[in-house]
């Protein structure tokens, strides 16, 4: 038996979408207002999905406190109230939410978690969301 559990978290951060290899005009054309020089911010909702069998003695797939502790320490404490462009994670990568989602999945996939990591989903705004499941396709 395999059950998927999703936990939702919130962090706030700023970013600016700008590729130094492109001209000012091309950056403006590509990124629009996301290229404004001083950046802007979002409240990002992060959804972390893990999976596994239900442990009969607890009825649970995952120790939620343990999951919260890892995500808080390794993701939220790193990204919340930060300027993403200034972080080492994005020194060579534009902090689009595509890249942010991949980065968070990579961070979590390399750590011991209390259940198997399935996918990471980030809502940049209520209208935009991104999902990454590593090598596998996200579930429908």
């Amino acid at each position, binding site marked *: 038996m395999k059950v*998927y559990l999703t936990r939702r978290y919130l962090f706030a951060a700023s970013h600016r979408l700008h590729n130094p290899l492109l001209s000012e005009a091309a950056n403006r054309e590509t990124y629009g207002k996301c290229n404004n020089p001083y950046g802007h911010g979002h409240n990002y909702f992060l959804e972390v999905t893990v999976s596994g069998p*239900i442990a009969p*003695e607890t009825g649970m797939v995952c120790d939620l406190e343990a999951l919260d502790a890892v995500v808080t320490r390794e993701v939220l404490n790193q990204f919340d109230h930060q300027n993403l462009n200034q972080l080492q994670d994005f020194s060579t990568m534009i902090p689009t939410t595509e890249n942010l989602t991949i980065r968070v999945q990579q961070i979590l996939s390399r750590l011991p978690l209390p259940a198997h990591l399935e996918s990471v989903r980030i809502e940049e705004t209520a209208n935009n969301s991104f999902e990454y499941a590593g090598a596998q396709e996200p579930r*429908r």
Partner: protein
Amino acid sequence: MIYLTRKAEFSASHYYHNPEWSAEENQRVFGKCANLNGHGHNYTLEVTVSGDVDAVTGFVIDLKQLKDILNREVLDDFDHRHLNKEVPEFSGQIPTTENIAVAIWKRLESKLRPARLHRVRLYEMPDLFVDYYGE
């Protein structure tokens, strides 16, 4: 193949307790969920069915029938009930969101033909939900 999702809500109380453990062990593992007086949630259930669109009706499933099935098989038994004490599946297992989702799957799986039950998604809170695909 098309997928249709219907949402429903129910409110219920529960507690987490493993009778094979001491009170201290229950408290350590389940925290405030171990309070034997129980507590409650507004659960949001999303049931996704899949199938082909019927050429005559244009439906994958009749929504009114699906609503009636959800009411009869799930909500009538779960809504405004104490899951540990009033729902038979939980006389022998802990009514976690995981186990509730699986119990709902088992209640619905054979009732939706010719459509197929694809997914049961159950929100305990806006920041916590479980998906079960019958795997």
